[in-house]
């Protein structure tokens, strides 16, 4: 009988294969850190200035003549996350409440199936439909022309909306449609993890379902709700396809009233796509400093992602400890 197997047994192979994600993540982090050194040393605090434009990089780069400020992109990221979470989170909350506490049997099963199927829609479909929604909704509402132009009075001023069917509000709304099937299962899990005994005790004491939801389910599921909110923010932060398609690839400066969502304020991910870009004709102008700025912006995203992931893993541990 063989007592000791060789070193190259199955477990070693499994261990080696499973280290691949760790290696990949550390290589990505290392690449971003090493790539952003050039930008930080050349530009310094100019990285956060309020002007961004692509131009031919001179061989001897003077930081004052380069416009690689990331402030508009950071503001655009904030606006997009704000719009999309404000739309998606109440809807997901309503869906999760209806699936869990306010219905049984067919309706809750139907909602879970529907959300599961909708989560298979890839982001590029939402991006494509963004331009269709723009023609249906944004032109009649925000430009005074389009489908309902026959019945409308003539325009008080020339329309100023971007001509290529894109604005910040549109990007945020389409992103919200992507977020709803992502957040709802997380909220569903959070509500399901509340012990049924607590809910049943509350209901048997004569409290109605809304009161039980308000005073038992939501306080007990609060770590899970915050967890799903944070993960939703993380997804909205990192989404690149919808925002590039529906908002655009670059922003020169902050919008003139800063809250103007009818202009194009491209978020950080679109800026990274422009600067790092493989095939875009404008990105052929980008020199080594621009590529390095892309790495720096990626590093910012990575740091925020690690912070949010740390908080969510803390919350998940807290939830597990509460259940045990």
């Amino acid at each position, binding site marked *: 009988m063989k007592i000791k*197997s060789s070193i190259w047994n199955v477990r070693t192979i499994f261990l080696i294969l499973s280290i691949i994600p760790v290696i990949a993540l550390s290589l990505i982090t290392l690449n971003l850190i090493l790539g952003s050194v050039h930008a930080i040393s050349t530009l310094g605090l100019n990285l956060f200035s309020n002007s961004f434009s692509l131009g031919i990089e001179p061989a001897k780069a003077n930081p004052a003549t380069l416009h690689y400020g990331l402030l508009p992109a950071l503001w655009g990221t904030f606006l997009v996350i704000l719009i999309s979470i404000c739309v998606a989170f109440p809807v997901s909350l309503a869906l999760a409440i209806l699936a869990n506490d*306010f219905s049984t049997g067919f309706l809750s099963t139907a909602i879970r199936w529907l959300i599961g199927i909708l989560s298979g829609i890839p982001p590029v479909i939402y991006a494509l439909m963004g331009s269709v929604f723009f023609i249906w909704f944004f032109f009649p509402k925000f430009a005074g022309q389009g489908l309902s132009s026959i019945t*409308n*009075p003539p325009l*008080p001023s020339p329309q100023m909306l971007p001509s290529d069917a894109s604005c910040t509000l549109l990007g945020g709304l389409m992103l919200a449609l992507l977020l709803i099937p992502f957040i709802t299962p997380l909220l569903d899990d959070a509500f399901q993890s509340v012990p049924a005994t607590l809910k049943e005790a509350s209901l048997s004491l004569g409290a109605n379902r809304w009161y039980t939801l308000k005073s038992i389910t939501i306080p007990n599921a609060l770590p899970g709700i915050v967890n799903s909110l944070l993960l939703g923010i993380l997804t909205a932060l990192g989404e690149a396809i919808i925002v590039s398609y529906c908002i655009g690839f670059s922003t020169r400066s902050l919008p003139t009233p800063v809250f103007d969502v009818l202009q194009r304020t491209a978020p950080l991910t679109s800026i990274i796509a422009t600067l790092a870009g493989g*095939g875009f*004709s404008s990105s052929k102008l980008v020199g080594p400093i621009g590529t390095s700025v892309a790495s720096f912006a990626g590093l910012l*995203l990575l740091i925020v992602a690690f912070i949010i992931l740390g908080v969510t893993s803390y919350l998940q541990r807290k939830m597990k400890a509460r259940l045990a």
Partner: protein
Amino acid sequence: MTDTIKAAPIPGKTNYFSIFTWAITLIMVAAIILGALVLAFNSFDICSAPLLFTTGALLIIIFLFIKKSLKINQYVLIALAAAAIISGVISNSLPVYLQGLNIHGIIHRSVVSGLLILGISVPGACYSLYYALRGTPRAFDISRYPLLIFFILSALAAYAMIIVHIIQGGTFQLHWSLFTSAFQSQSHIIETWENGWPSFTTVPVRQTGMLNHITGTLMLMLLTSLISLPVGVSVGVIVHEYAGRKLSGIINFSTNALRSISGIILAVTAINLVRLPKLGSFWYGVFRGYGYDVNGMIQYGRSSFLFASVFISLLVIPIIAKATKEGLSSLPADIHEGSLALGVSKDHTLFHIQLPWSLPNIVTGLMLGCAEAAGALTIIFLLSGVGQYGVNPLNETTSLAYLIFDSKYWQSLGDTLGDLKNYQFTAALVLLIITIGFTTMALILKRNLAKRYKGA
């Protein structure tokens, strides 16, 4: 919370209170529908001010009726009615187009009035339903349904519009040759000899079709699942078997992090990597992808299918790992321990008990991963091309998702997509069928898994 209506219905006498409150509830529901129509179409804006005044008057009447019959002062109803009348005045006095504050665009009045109508008629419907159901605790629950259902229907309407429009636009110009011919836009150089001198004529080779995009999508799915299946399964096994150890914690965290960090970060790394090899070297061809055009010349792309699917599989590995973990932890402990107690080695148990048990979970994860790979564009949208020089693992990456994305930026990306630009909805329909098909199959499998033996 539960001010139960004491006036019980007297048999044989008409119950005016019930009839009246039900009528008002129906009017409020109609107001919600009209509010949605005002938001959708500019021409419905005519009815917004009368609707708001009517809603306010009805809310005041409910307040008076409840005060008279039940001796209860529901001041919330008065506040809601005041808000309705004030917003009616506001929407009546607004100009048709709002301008100012340097906002780029002019906002039609119906946006404001539609939001005001919805904001007043949804709580109004909740309150009138509450009193129509005689104010019992159960009625309080039921009166919250309009609020929940309003949110859900407004979201589902958007999804329904998306799917209906894609089916409509995709089938509008559909013809079969799109799926049987590959897209081509090349120029064939023909050399002829005249009087001892060579003369060259270029013949354009053009073909419209999306066969190469469809096969490219399938190729990405195949390569991604081949790469990510062993890694994902082994991550799941290691994390499950050595739970609590530091190494498995690190593996678990970084696998989850790969899924959660932005795909564009992976894309930046991919672009930096694809720029590394020198032109003409072996790795240049492997990373960039190459094919031969009609003239027999070698053409390099932006990245090969193999290179792209290595990076896409970083997004798919977490899905498969999570599914494997779930499958392994759903194995009843008595089966696992029974196998070990009979003297079977751990590896044998792993391969003959644990992995066969979690095979359906792994297949579910693989299907979700395939749907992800078909729709994954964040990594490859900077690294793809038309893919007209053939589809094999070392050719230039292309996929349906990229075709859809490129149909807007076909000029800025410099690709000559030409006629294919008109078929973006057909491409979207095919992509939607692939991804939703795989997701639905995975859901059906998962549902069957829930019915499995769960141990004693």
